[in-house]
């Protein structure tokens, strides 16, 4: 049997099973709009699939039923018992045809004129003169046997029992699930053991524990892999679909795919199929223009739909782009008004970015005519809900005239979910990391201020307002007024923040569905057992945002254009340290090389661990005081060079090198950490390697060696930026916010090798400061550099007159560091 047919059969059988309950309920309660919607979607899916598998009989039947259901759903018709019967009959007929298809591989001969006529009469598409016929048909509908022809159970068995490949065996998914569950428990138990062991340093346990741990890691990996399949399995039907669509629509369309070998969980594969087919259908129907239109627009006549998959961290990104007409903001605006989603005034005031997100709203379709392909208002809203159901997110970007790109991010597997553990009112919750775009700490003094608009909390983020959901408030917990961490959630046309008291850690959770007693709570999407054995509830960000309207929320920023993103990116080396699950990162540019050190090469010298590397004795920088070299095997380490000297930083494991934007600012109390950033989809601890080298390597000497710099600047942003920057460059920086504070330091007898001062503080304080310093006293001989913003060159004259020796531009770190370096060299030479 054709693979596609087989796919179609199993999919439709599954769908029919799912809708069975709904049908029964529908019969009892035909006014339930939700049920009607579900049935409508099923029929729509069946019709869509039939179209490209080439099953005209089923397609005609489904199309007629869909028309009726569509009219009922839109309220154009009222639900009558006759309509209910017709729908039930149709579903039953689809079931019969499908099972016949499963047996023979072919659509059974025959026509469904009876049912179709009935459906059309009910839809109001055909005159009532066919009424009598209608009644007759109901009575004499063909029985399943005559409809399908004689087939027996033996045929079915013969058809299905294929010859198995000798290289592989069939294992039931159930057994694999069981394996997965056991391994997950093993992993949890191991984590617990490791945690216990870290507290008590009994070394006899260390070795077997290490081996056990590594073995469990491998086992987990293997079991995970048994569930993995290349994503190309999810899009094998698409080329045929595109071909059929192009023919139907009179367009020329080419489908390009990339990354088909990207692997993901079998279960995910099944779940992502439908959304992908929907999106491709949409792109072909709404996106790609007719050949003559494309020619006029100066584009090649053949439109291209590109499908790319790639793994990024713990999730898969699927990018589906077309080079079609893009989304027309005016049409979206009109449609928004037509469907009653927005008033005229709202629509006029809405930005284009917000408008494009409307395509994810239920019942929103911009296709001008109802076609056979799409455009009945089932479309992107269904795609969105399907993607979200499997814990994914979807975003859209469009350029009118140039095309549309959808970005779907889904987890690799449903079984294990990287999550962020947060706290509110003393209760811990997990948030799926895939939904978290950014972590921000609110601070009265910084630009990220939390404020209230008529009682509703909002956050100022990069000049825009981000609506906030106070987790404690939303869950009805007793909250203290100290929630100051915000998780920025970006998903399907919504960007909002979740306000929590604290952020603890990241953990890989083995997700389990909540019990039925809790299933009605929309704010949870599961629960899991943590490494410490306690149970944690996993929040569903979409459920939590339930009452935030889709339209009213803006992203807080426009989508970055490609160029900007490129410039911001930095290559980071990811590794694990101190046995923690949260990955750590250092800029790759700081790492001289990665070494895998043999346990025998470690030696102890003067109370410090050293290692022989290529003839040189290199000191080890340990992650913490308890660190010991391994008794056997190898120890991975990162080699850094500082002031011409080498040092090796011992790590647990080098994970990866990724290019990532570093933009987040969850600060840390650990001085060896610069803070937390989302890298490759996971919260990552940015290690202040300069600090570690200075303080762990040779604290006393480092202190004396490093040049001391005083920074005076009234902007918290500049202060936050310069601190780590100068530290990384090997300076000891003292940073103060105003001139008076600086002068207090002078009077207290503090000495600096250089002073960096903002030249443009309000009230000409900068210039005044320069004059005061240079006028005399202990600092008069210290080089004084002015921090200036770009474009303030005319003022340099004034600045020099006041006593500034040089001008440097604040936001240009390269030049800043060069200028500092040059100044020090000059000092030394002098």
């Amino acid at each position, binding site marked *: 049997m054709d693979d596609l047919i087989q796919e179609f059969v199993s999919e439709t059988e599954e769908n029919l099973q799912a809708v069975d309950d709904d049908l029964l309920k529908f019969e009892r309660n035909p006014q339930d709009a939700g049920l009607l919607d579900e049935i409508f979607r099923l029929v729509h899916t069946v019709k869509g699939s039939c179209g490209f598998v080439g099953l005209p009989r089923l397609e005609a039947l489904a199309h007629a039923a869909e028309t009726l259901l569509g009219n009922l759903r839109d309220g154009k018709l009222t639900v009558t018992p006759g309509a209910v019967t017709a729908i039930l009959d149709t579903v039953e007929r689809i079931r019969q045809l499908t099972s016949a298809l499963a047996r023979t591989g072919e659509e059974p001969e025959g026509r469904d004129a009876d049912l179709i006529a009935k459906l059309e009469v009910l839809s109001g598409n055909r005159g009532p003169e066919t009424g009598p016929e209608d009644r007759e048909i109901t009575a004499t509908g063909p029985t399943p046997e005559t409809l399908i022809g004689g087939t027996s159970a033996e045929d079915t068995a013969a058809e299905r029992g294929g010859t198995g490949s000798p290289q592989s065996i069939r294992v039931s998914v159930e057994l694999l699930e069981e394996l997965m569950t056991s391994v997950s428990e093993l992993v949890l138990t191991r984590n617990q053991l490791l945690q216990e062991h870290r507290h008590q340093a009994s070394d006899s346990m260390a070795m077997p524990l290490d081996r056990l741990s590594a073995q469990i890691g491998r086992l987990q990996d293997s079991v995970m892999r048994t569930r993995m399949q290349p994503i190309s399995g999810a899009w094998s039907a698409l080329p045929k679909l595109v071909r059929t669509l192009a023919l139907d629509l009179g367009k020329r369309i080419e489908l390009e795919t990339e990354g088909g070998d990207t692997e993901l969980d079998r279960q995910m594969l099944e779940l992502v199929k439908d959304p992908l087919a929907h999106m491709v259908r949409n792109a072909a129907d709404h996106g790609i223009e007719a050949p003559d239109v494309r020619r006029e627009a100066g584009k090649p006549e053949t439109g291209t739909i590109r499908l790319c998959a790639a793994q990024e961290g713990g999730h898969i990104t699927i990018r589906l782009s077309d080079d079609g007409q893009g989304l027309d903001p005016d049409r979206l605006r009109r449609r928004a008004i037509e469907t009653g989603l927005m008033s005229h005034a709202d629509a006029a005031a809405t930005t284009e970015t917000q408008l494009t997100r409307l395509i994810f709203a239920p019942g929103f379709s911009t296709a001008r005519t109802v076609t056979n392909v799409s455009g009945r208002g089932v479309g992107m809203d269904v795609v969105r809900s399907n993607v979200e159901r499997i814990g994914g997110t979807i975003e859209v970007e469009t350029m009118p005239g140039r095309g549309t790109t959808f970005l779907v991010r889904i987890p690799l597997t449903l079984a294990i979910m990287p999550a962020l553990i947060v706290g509110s009112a003393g209760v811990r919750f997990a948030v799926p990391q895939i939904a978290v775009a950014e972590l921000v700490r609110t601070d009265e003094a910084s630009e990220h201020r939390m404020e209230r608009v008529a009682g509703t909390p909002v956050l100022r983020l990069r000049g825009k307002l981000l609506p906030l959901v106070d987790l404690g408030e939303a869950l009805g917990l007793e909250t203290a007024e100290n929630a100051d961490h915000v998780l920025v959630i970006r998903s399907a046309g919504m960007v909002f923040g979740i306000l929590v008291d604290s952020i603890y850690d990241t953990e890989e959770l083995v997700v389990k569905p909540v019990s039925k007693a809790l299933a009605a709570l929309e704010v949870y999407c599961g629960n899991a057992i943590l490494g410490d054995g306690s*149970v944690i509830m996993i929040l569903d960000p979409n459920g939590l945002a339930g009452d935030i309207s889709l339209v009213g929320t803006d992203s807080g920023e426009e989508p970055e254009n490609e160029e900007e993103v490129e410039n911001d990116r930095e290559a980071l080396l990811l590794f694990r340290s101190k046995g923690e699950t949260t990955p750590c990162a250092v800029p790759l540019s700081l790492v001289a090389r990665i070494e895998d050190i043999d346990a025998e090469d470690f030696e102890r010298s003067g109370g410090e661990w050293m290692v022989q590397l290529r003839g040189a004795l290199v000191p080890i920088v340990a992650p913490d005081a308890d660190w010991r070299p391994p008794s056997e095997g190898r120890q991975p380490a990162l080699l850094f060079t500082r002031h011409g000297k080498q040092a090796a930083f011992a790590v647990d494991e080098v994970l990866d090198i990724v290019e990532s934007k570093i933009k987040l600012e969850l600060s840390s109390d650990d001085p060896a950490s610069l803070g937390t950033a989302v890298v490759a989809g996971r919260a990552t601890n940015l290690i202040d390697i300069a600090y570690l080298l200075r303080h762990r390597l040779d604290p006393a000497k480092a202190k004396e060696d490093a040049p001391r710099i005083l920074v005076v600047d009234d902007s918290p942003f500049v202060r936050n930026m310069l601190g780590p920057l100068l530290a990384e460059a090997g300076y000891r920086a003292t940073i103060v916010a105003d001139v008076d504070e600086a002068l207090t330091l002078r009077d207290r007898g503090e000495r600096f090798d250089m002073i960096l001062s903002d030249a443009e503080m309000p009230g000409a304080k900068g210039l005044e400061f320069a004059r005061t310093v240079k006028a005399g006293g202990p600092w008069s001989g210290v080089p004084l550099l002015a921090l200036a913003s770009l474009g303030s060159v005319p003022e340099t004259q004034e600045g020099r007159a006041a006593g500034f020796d040089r001008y440097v531009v604040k936001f240009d770190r390269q030049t800043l560091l060069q200028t500092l370096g040059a100044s020090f060299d000059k000092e030394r030479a002098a």
Partner: protein
Amino acid sequence: MNQLVTMTLDGRELCVGVDTVQDVVRLETVTPVPQAPDWIAGVMNLRGHIVTAVDLRARLGLPAGGDGSGRMCVVVDFDGDAYGLIVDKVSEVIAITDDQRDGDPATLPAAWRAISRGVIRLDDALLLEIDPAHIVSLPQSRAA
């Protein structure tokens, strides 16, 4: 199914069919589930399985009992999920015969009637047999 686990809740003698009981454990750390009905005490870890803890007192409208320490949890299976019924004390497993069963007294309050499977007559006591299915299948979630 003529074996029953007997237990005590707020001075009342209850029992439940032994075949539905998975386990009896001391009540330990329970993670609260905000927004859940008030009779859901939370979720807890029973040897790697997540169990939804049901506060039977709240379910039956009885006064809250102490701080919950030392209380017992009768873990029952219902519809593929495990629920832990929190009671004051779990006593023993008894065997009965069918002629010891009786219907609910007509005057039994509605909250009790909703979860009852009938009365068991022992020589020295009367036990109300509770039905786990009726305890955890909830009007609240049907409405949603």
